[in-house]
């Protein structure tokens, strides 16, 4: 009986999802003072609002690794379907992975049904995936698009809960952006007013929160048409460019070259059997 059970345990293939085998080792290491590896986060502002003809999404372009900016111009507005885009905040790898995966699933679904994708489909696929991973997938998303039922805008939290709202902000700069939205938003905005408001909200995050910076990306989605305005605003040019430039010394100087040939230690014997397969 015991022998059979041990065999069965050895034969079961590893299931999908995260493996928590190393958690105890990690805890032991952190107790000894070893710092855990850092990962790249997008300390971010992502926003979305519904205007009279559709949805406008906005995002900043800075990715940080702790206190250092690792990407000054990254893309946080991800493509999901021709009529649906998704902004991602949190761990950069997680947001990219989850949006790419759901985007592929939507494409297959479009082939299967022969119809344009709906925003609620993307929403359900994303929230099921994030809930399955119990919040370990650190992705906070703002999903927006226009489908057969009109314009939609949703926020999705890392644990899998969702909200459906006319205006949405996520990320470390969400409070700064929401403050701007709450003071200036009204129903029935025109496209120009909407883009302006989105840019103002992102800029308030850019200048007041250290995790956010660089440029503003905007995406406008209306019935049957989308405009992806990459780097719509560049409010942060480099302040000082040296006119003369700098010279860099050529290479490390060679001080001494000494070649010591090693003695042969291997004896080569003639004959011997050929290697077996």
């Amino acid at each position, binding site marked *: 009986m015991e022998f059979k059970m041990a065999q069965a345990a050895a034969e079961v293939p590893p299931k999908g999802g995260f493996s928590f085998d190393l958690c105890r080792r990690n805890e032991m290491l952190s107790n000894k003072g070893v710092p855990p590896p850092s990962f790249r986060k997008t300390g971010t502002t992502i926003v979305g609002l519904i205007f009279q003809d559709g949805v406008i999404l906005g995002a900043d372009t800075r990715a940080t690794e702790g206190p250092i900016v690792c990407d000054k111009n990254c893309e946080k507005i991800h493509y999901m379907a021709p009529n649906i885009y998704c902004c991602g905040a949190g761990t950069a790898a997680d947001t990219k992975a989850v949006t790419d995966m759901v985007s592929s699933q939507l494409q297959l679904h479009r082939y299967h049904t022969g119809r344009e994708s709906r925003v609620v489909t993307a929403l359900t696929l994303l929230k099921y995936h994030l809930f399955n991973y119990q919040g370990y997938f650190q992705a906070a998303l703002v999903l927006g698009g226009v489908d057969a039922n009109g314009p939609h805008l949703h926020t999705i939290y890392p644990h899998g809960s969702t909200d459906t709202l006319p205006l949405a902000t996520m990320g470390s700069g969400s409070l700064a952006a929401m403050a701007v939205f709450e003071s200036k938003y009204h129903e029935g905005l025109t496209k120009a007013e909407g883009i302006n408001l989105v840019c103002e909200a992102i800029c308030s995050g850019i200048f007041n929160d250290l995790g956010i910076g660089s440029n503003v990306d905007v995406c406008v989605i209306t019935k049957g048409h989308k405009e992806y305005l990459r780097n719509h605003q560049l409010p942060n040019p480099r302040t000082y460019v040296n006119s003369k430039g*700098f010279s860099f010394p050529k290479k490390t100087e060679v001080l001494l070259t000494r070649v010591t040939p090693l003695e042969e230690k291997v004896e080569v014997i003639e004959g011997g059997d050929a290697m077996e397969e």
Partner: protein
Amino acid sequence: MTKQQANWSPYDNNGGSCVAVAGADYCVVAADTRMSSGYNILTRDYSKICKLADKCVMASSGFQADVKALQKLLAARHLIYQHQHNKQMSCPAMAQLLSNTLYYKRFFPYYSFNVLGGLDSEGKGCVFTYDAVGSYEKVGYSSQGSGSTLIMPFLDNQLKSPSPLLLPALDAVTPLSESEAVDLVKTVFASATERDIYTGDKLEIVILNAEGIRREYMELRKD
């Protein structure tokens, strides 16, 4: 039973970077003016540079409350010195005083990363660099603070003398002219601001030479 951890820290890091470069007859000390806490900006216009004596200027990054206390203490000690000796403290003397003051609080340190810049008694530029507990060294240039890991390698590349095995060791001071040194400092801060979130807003540059002390400002990225 794991050791009980403190749930409150007496320190905070207000960020920022400082740089000092010494020349044959001048010294340039610079720091950004951003004061932050966590991801928030507390103010865009806070000076980290303090004039300790006629020919001696200190720039400090770290916990600004400790920096302020340290500056007050040094100013008081300098006043006593002036009463006792009837003259201003020279830069090397102030350097030693700062080191002793920092080590005095060895077991509850000032969270302050300092660079001291000035002219010695012969009028030549000198820069002293410190750690939080007072270990110091006279150098030709130095940087401290959150952006120092980005700034120091560039200064080493441009200002460091080549290997002492090849040539006799060059003098610590840089062969650059005063305007070239100021230009270098501006470039270095513009670059550090691009990649360090705690550095930015405005750059304050203090230049000491035989004529006296001069201050310059330059705008930096505010994001």
